C-alpha cells in the first residue's frame, strides 16, 4: 500500500521509531532508521542486546563466527547518536495511531548504575551465588550479578533479584564492597516511562521448542542428549567448555554424533506443524564444525527431508557429505535408548531397504525448531495486532512486514520461521515502512552535536599525556600501573603521565579533558582496554576539547595483557610497559587527519522494472526521493506477469496491475523503457550513468533488480508432447479452463535444478507444485495428482500446504537424481516409470499430463551486465552480496544495492521484502546531505607513483583508477583504508592515515629496543 501523505497530516507525525527486540533483525531496523535521520528507541527485555544470533557459534554457509559478525553491530547500535537503548525493558501498552503512538514502557531494576559501571567485572568474581547460565543453555553456572555473555552490550552487569542473597535474604553486599566505581545500587526500582513515536517495529524473536515433550528422545532424562542450541554453546570458543566439545555425562570427547531433525517441527500432534526453516542447515553446519574441531568425529544426520533451499545451501550440504563425511539417513527415529553403563545412546531406525537398525552414538543432538514466544498472545494484544492461528504476527504475503495495525511493522521470526539473512532483510524492510511513513520528519527528533574548532598543532613539539587506567583491579591487580606511568613519563615526547582508577568513567574522561587544557597536551595515549570498543569514546573525549581525533592512541593493557597474564605480575608489568611505549612511539608521529565530505544526489537509479524494482521504487518515492527506473523491455512487470496466484492464494495479477499503475502514475518516478545501462561513472552519492538510448542520469545510489528468467526445459519429452507442460503452463490451464474430470497429473520436481551445471535449488518449484496440486484437487477431487520429488522444500509456514496437499490425496513419491523418472508418450497417455523406493518395485503411471517443475535461471547476459558495474556473481551467476548473512542487499561497492531474483531464486513475498529492504538501505544513504569520508584512508602521492597498476589490480573496492592523463589516481571516497595498496605498492606511494609506515615502524623499533 502506498501512503499518500498530505502535508498537513504529516505535521503531527513524530520522527521517532520504537523497535521492540534487539536481536539481529531489530538492530538492523534500528541502524537503518537511525542512519536515515530518525530517532530510534531500541527496547530489549534481556540485559544485553544481541538476541538469538549472539548464542550461535558459527553460521552457515560461510562458517563465519556469529559473535565476530554481530559484535560490531551491537557496538554500533549502542554508540549511534540517534539510537537510545532501553535494556531489561518491555512495552506495557500502546495508544495512538500511525504517525503518533504513545508507548508505555516498564524497565525493571538492574541494581547496577550504567553511568558508573565500567564493566570491569570485579563484582561478578566476588558474588557467592551461582545460578544456571541461561545464555549457555544451562550447561554452566553464572553468578547472581552477571553479564549475559562476555561481549555483552551494554557491558553493565545486572543483578538477578531472584537469586541475589541481599535482595532475597538481606545478607552479603559483597559486590557493593568490591565495586570501586560505586555502581551497585540496591535501591534501584522498576521504572515506567512513556515514549512518543511515529511508528513501531516488532522484532521480539523466538522461543525454541521444549524437547522434553518428545519423551522418546530422552531429553532431560538422558544426559548425553542435548539440544542443537546447547550444542552451539558446546562448540563455541566462548561457551561452557571453551570450544572443546565434551559430553555432559563424563566430560569425554564424543566421536559418534547423531543429529535428529525436525524435533518439534512438522508434526501437528505433539510438536509444531510448521517447518522451522533453519534446522537442516544448522545441523549441516554443526556437523562440519564438529569435524573441524575433532577430525575423528563421525556425524550422522537422521532427517525427513533436506530443506537446503537458500542461496548456496545445497553446495553446503554437499560439502558436509563429501568433505566432512557426514552420513545422511532419510528415516524417522522411533526412540533413543541409553546404555546405563556407558551412557552411550542407541538410535533405532528403519533403513531404506526396510530393515531395522540399532546404532550406537556417544552423543545425540536434537535439532529443535522455532516457535513464537510464550508471551506471543499477550504481546500481540499490547500492540493491537492480529496473529495467525499459531501465534505468529499476521501479515499478507504481498506486504510481508505490515501488521494488521497501521504504522506497526514486524520483522524476523515473529513473522514466521526464518534464518539470519531473511531476518536482516525483513529488519531493513520494516525500516523502509517506517521511513516511508515518517520520511518528512527526518532529523526532527535527533540532536546535533556542536564541537569547538580544532586546535592547530602542526609544527608543535609532541606534548603527550599518558593516562594509565587501573580499571579497578582488572589492570592494577596484575600490572603495576604506577610503574607503567613512571616509565612512560620518561619517554621522549611525553609531558605528563598519571594513573586513574577508571579512565572510561565520566570522572576519568573529565580528568583527560582537564589535563589536555592544564598541561597544554597535543597528543594523548590512554593505556586501558581495547581500542575496538573504547577507542571512539576517548577520541570523542579529546575532540570535545579541540584535539583532532587522530592525535590519540589506546594501548590495550587489559584484554591483551592483564587479563591473560594474571598471577604473572612481573612479566605482565614489563609487557604493559612495552605496549605503552610502542604506542607512545607511534603517537609521537601522529598527525591530525582531516575528514572530508562529498555531497549526495538524492536520486536513485533502479535497474529492472519487475516486482522488485517497482516495489523498491515506490518505497523510495514514499520516503521522499526521486527515482529513475530503467527497464530493458517495453512493459513493466517482469516474471510476475506469468504468475496468476501465490501458494497462499493471493491474486498476483491484480496486485501487479495496481503496482504498475502506481509506478506509472507517480511523478517522482522517471521511467526509461526499452533501454538499459551503457556506462556508469562516479562514486557513492554522485553517479553519472548513461543509458543505451542516449539518456544520461545523475543519481546517488544504484539498485540492481535485474531479475532472472524461467528455465525452459528439454527434459522429459517436453519438446515432443503437448501434454508435457511446465508448472507455469499448468497454472494458466487451470485458471482458464475447468479441469476435465478424473485426469491424472504427474509432477516431476527439480527439473533443471540441483544438478550440474545448475546445482542450486530454485526454491519456488515445490511451492508451485503444491499450489497447482491443491488447485486441481479442490476443483476436481476425482483427479489424481502424483508428485515425484527429491525433497519437498515447503519451508516455514508453507508446510501447511504440503500437509493440505497430502490430506487432499496428492501422492508424493521420492526419486534420486541417479534414477530419474522416465516419460514415454503413448497414443492416449504418457507412461511414467520410476523406481518405487518404498515398495522396492518399479512404479508405472499412465498420466494424462506430465508437469515439469522447472526452476529459475539468472539473466543469460548477467556476466556482461555485471562487468559494467564491476560487480561479481557467484558460481551460478547470481550477484554476490557484500555479506551473505548481515549485508544481504548491499554490494561490497559503496552505493550499490541488490534485490530480487538477481540475488538468488526467491518467491514473490521474499522478493517484496528484499526490495523494500534495499529501498531502506538506499534511503538511509540518500538521506544524507553529504557523506563524510572516513579518516583512516589511503593517501596517494602521485609524485612517487609509477603507475605500475599494482594497486588498481589489488584494491577490492576499485578506489585506485587510471585517470584521464593515463596515470593512476586514487578515489578516496571509495577507499576503506585497508591498506592493501600500501602493501603492494613498490614505490611506497600510498600511506594509510593513522597507520603510516613511519608510525608502524616506530612501534616495531620500540618493541625491538630492548637490546
Amino acid at each position, binding site marked *: 500500500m502506498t501512503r499518500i501523505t498530505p502535508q498537513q497530516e504529516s505535521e503531527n507525525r513524530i520522527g521517532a521509531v520504537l523497535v521492540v527486540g534487539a536481536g539481529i533483525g531489530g538492530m538492523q531496523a534500528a541502524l537503518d532508521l537511525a542512519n536515515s535521520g530518525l530517532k530510534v528507541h531500541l527496547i530489549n527485555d534481556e540485559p544485553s542486546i544481541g538476541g538469538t544470533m549472539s548464542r550461535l557459534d558459527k553460521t552457515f554457509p560461510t562458517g563465519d563466527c556469529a559473535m*565476530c559478525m554481530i*559484535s*560490531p553491530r551491537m557496538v554500533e547500535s549502542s554508540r549511534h547518536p540517534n539510537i537510545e537503548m532501553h535494556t531489561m525493558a518491555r512495552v506495557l501498552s500502546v495508544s495512538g495511531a500511525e504517525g503518533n503512538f504513545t508507548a508505555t514502557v516498564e524497565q525493571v531494576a538492574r541494581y547496577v548504575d550504567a553511568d558508573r559501571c565500567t564493566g570491569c567485572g570485579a563484582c561478578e568474581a566476588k558474588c557467592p551465588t551461582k545460578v544456571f547460565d541461561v545464555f549457555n543453555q544451562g550447561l554452566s553456572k553464572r553468578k547472581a550479578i552477571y553479564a549475559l555473555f*562476555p*561481549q555483552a552490550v551494554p557491558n553493565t552487569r545486572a543483578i538477578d533479584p531472584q537469586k541475589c542473597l541481599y535482595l532475597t535474604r538481606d545478607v552479603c553486599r559483597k559486590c557493593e564492597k568490591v565495586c570501586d566505581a560505586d555502581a551497585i545500587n540496591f535501591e534501584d526500582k522498576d521504572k515506567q516511562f512513556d515514549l512518543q513515536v511515529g511508528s513501531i517495529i516488532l522484532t521480539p524473536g523466538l522461543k525454541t521448542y521444549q524437547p522434553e515433550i518428545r519423551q522418546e528422545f530422552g531429553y532431560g532424562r538422558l544426559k548425553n542428549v542435548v539440544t542443537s542450541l546447547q550444542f552451539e554453546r558446546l562448540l563455541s*570458543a*566462548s561457551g561452557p567448555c*571453551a570450544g572443546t566439545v565434551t559430553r555432559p555425562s563424563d566430560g569425554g570427547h564424543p566421536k559418534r554424533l547423531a543429529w535428529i531433525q525436525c524435533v518439534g517441527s512438522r508434526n501437528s500432534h505433539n510438536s509444531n506443524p510448521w517447518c522451522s526453516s533453519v534446522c537442516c542447515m544448522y545441523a549441516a553446519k554443526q556437523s562440519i564444525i564438529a569435524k573441524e574441531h575433532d577430525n575423528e568425529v563421525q556425524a550422522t544426520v537422521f532427517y525427513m527431508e533436506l530443506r537446503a533451499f537458500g542461496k548456496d545451501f545445497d553446495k553446503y550440504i554437499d560439502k558436509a557429505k563429501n568433505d566432512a563425511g557426514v552420513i545422511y539417513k532419510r528415516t524417522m527415529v522411533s526412540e533413543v535408548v541409553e546404555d546405563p553403563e556407558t551412557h552411550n545412546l542407541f538410535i533405532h531406525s528403519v533403513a531404506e531397504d526396510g530393515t531395522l537398525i540399532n546404532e550406537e552414538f556417544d552423543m545425540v543432538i536434537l535439532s529443535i525448531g522455532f516457535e513464537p514466544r510464550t508471551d506471543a498472545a499477550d504481546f500481540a494484544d499490547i500492540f493491537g495486532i492480529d496473529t495467525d492461528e499459531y501465534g505468529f504476527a499476521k501479515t499478507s504475503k504481498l506486504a510481508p512486514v505490515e501488521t494488521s495495525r497501521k504504522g506497526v511493522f514486524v520483522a524476523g521470526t515473529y513473522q514466521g520461521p526464518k534464518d539470519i539473512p531473511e531476518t536482516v532483510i525483513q529488519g531493513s524492510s520494516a525500516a523502509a515502512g517506517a521511513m516511508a511513513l515518517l520520511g518528512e520528519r527526518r532529523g526532527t527528533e535527533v540532536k546535533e552535536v556542536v564541537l569547538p574548532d580544532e586546535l592547530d598543532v602542526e609544527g608543535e613539539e609532541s606534548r603527550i599525556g599518558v593516562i594509565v587506567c587501573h580499571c579497578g583491579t582488572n589492570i592494577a591487580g596484575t600490572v603495576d600501573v604506577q610503574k607503567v606511568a613512571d616509565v612512560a613519563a620518561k619517554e621522549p615526547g611525553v609531558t605528563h603521565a598519571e594513573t586513574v582508577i577508571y579512565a572510561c568513567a565520566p570522572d576519568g574522561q573529565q580528568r583527560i579533558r582537564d589535563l589536555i587544557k592544564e598541561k597544554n597536551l597535543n597528543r594523548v595515549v590512554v593505556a586501558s582496554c*581495547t*581500542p*575496538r570498543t573504547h577507542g571512539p569514546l576517548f577520541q570523542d573525549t579529546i575532540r570535545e576539547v579541540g584535539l583532532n581525533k587522530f592525535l590519540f592512541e589506546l594501548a*590495550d593493557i*587489559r*584484554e*591483551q*595483557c*592483564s*587479563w*591473560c*597474564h*594474571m598471577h*604473572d605480575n612481573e*612479566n*605482565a608489568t*614489563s*609487557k604493559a610497559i*612495552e*605496549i605503552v611505549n*610502542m604506542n607512545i612511539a607511534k603517537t609521537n608521529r601522529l598527525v591530525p587527519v582531516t575528514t572530508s565530505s562529498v555531497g549526495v544526489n538524492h536520486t536513485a537509479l533502479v535497474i529492472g522494472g519487475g516486482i522488485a524494482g517497482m516495489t523498491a521504487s515506490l518505497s523510495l518515492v514514499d520516503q521522499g526521493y526521486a527515482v529513475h527506473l530503467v527497464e530493458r523491455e517495453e512493459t513493466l512487470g517482469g516474471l510476475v506477469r506469468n504468475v496468476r496466484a501465490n501458494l497462499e492464494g493471493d491474486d498476483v495479477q491484480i496486485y501487479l496491475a495496481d503496482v504498475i499503475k502506481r509506478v506509472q502514475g507517480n511523478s517522482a518516478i522517471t521511467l526509461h523503457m526499452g533501454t538499459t545501462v551503457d556506462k556508469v561513472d562516479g562514486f557513492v552519492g554522485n553517479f553519472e550513468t548513461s543509458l543505451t538510448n542516449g539518456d544520461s542520469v545523475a543519481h546517488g545510489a544504484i539498485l540492481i533488480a535485474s531479475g532472472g528468467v524461467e528455465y525452459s526445459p528439454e527434459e522429459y519429452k517436453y519438446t515432443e508432447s503437448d501434454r508435457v507442460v511446465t508448472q507455469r503452463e499448468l497454472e494458466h490451464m487451470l485458471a482458464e479452463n475447468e479441469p476435465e474430470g478424473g485426469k491424472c497429473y504427474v509432477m516431476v520436481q527439480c527439473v533443471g535444478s540441483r544438478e550440474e551445471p545448475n546445482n542450486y535449488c530454485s526454491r519456488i518449484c515445490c511451492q508451485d507444485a503444491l499450489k497447482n496440486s491443491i488447485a486441481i484437487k479442490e476443483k476436481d477431487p476425482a483427479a489424481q495428482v502424483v508428485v515425484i520429488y527429491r525433497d519437498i522444500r515447503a519451508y516455514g509456514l508453507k508446510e501447511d500446504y504440503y500437509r493440505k496437499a497430502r490430506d487432499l490425496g496428492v501422492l508424493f513419491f521420492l526419486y534420486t537424481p541417479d534414477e530419474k523418472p522416465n516419460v514415454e508418450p503413448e497414443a492416449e497417455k504418457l507412461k511414467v516409470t520410476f523406481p518405487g523406493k518404498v515398495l522396492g518395485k518399479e512404479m508405472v503411471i499412465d498420466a494424462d499430463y506430465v508437469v515439469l517443475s522447472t526452476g529459475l535461471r539468472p539473466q543469460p547476459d548477467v556476466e556482461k551486465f555485471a562487468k559494467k558495474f564491476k560487480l561479481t556473481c557467484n558460481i551460478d551467476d547470481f550477484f554476490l552480496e557484500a555479506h551473505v548473512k548481515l549485508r544481504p542487499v548491499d554490494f561490497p561497492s559503496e552505493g550499490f544495492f541488490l534485490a530480487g531474483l538477481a540475488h538468488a531464486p526467491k518467491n514473490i513475498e521474499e522478493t517484496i521484502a528484499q526490495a523494500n529492504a534495499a529501498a531502506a538501505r538506499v534511503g538511509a544513504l540518500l538521506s544524507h546531505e553529504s557523506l563524510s569520508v572516513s579518516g*583512516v584512508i589511503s593517501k596517494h602521492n602521485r609524485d612517487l607513483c609509477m603507475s605500475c597498476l599494482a594497486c588498481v589490480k*589489488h584494491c577490492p573496492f576499485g578506489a585506485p583508477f587510471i585517470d584521464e592523463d593515463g596515470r593512476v589516481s586514487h578515489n578516496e571516497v571509495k577507499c576503506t*583504508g*585497508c*591498506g*592493501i595498496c*600500501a*602493501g603492494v605498492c613498490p614505490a611506497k606511494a600510498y600511506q*594509510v592515515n*593513522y*597507520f603510516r*609506515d613511519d608510525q*608502524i*615502524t616506530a*612501534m*616495531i*623499533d620500540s*618493541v*625491538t629496543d*630492548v*637490546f
Partner: protein
Amino acid sequence: MTAATEKIEQPVGPEKPQEIPVDWKANIVAFACHYCAFAAADLAGVMRLSYPSNVKVVRLPCSGKLDHSYILRAFERGIDGVFAAG
C-alpha cells in the same frame, strides 16, 4: 624433480649455534588485523586465556596492510619471531 633415491645433504651452517642463556625469552611481535586477529586477541583476554607474555601486538587496519618491510625491519633489529594474523 628430485629423485626419491637421491641423497639429501645436511645443510652446514656458517656459524656454531649460540648458547641459549637460561633466562632467555623470545621477543615476538604480532601484526594483527583490527577486525579479526586483534579482536581474537581481545577475546582471549575476555575469556582469561593464558599465553606467554612475550608477544606484543601491532594493530593494522587489515592484514593486507602488512608490509614486507615491517617484517624485515623487525628481524633486522633482532626480533626473535614475527606472528602475522588476520
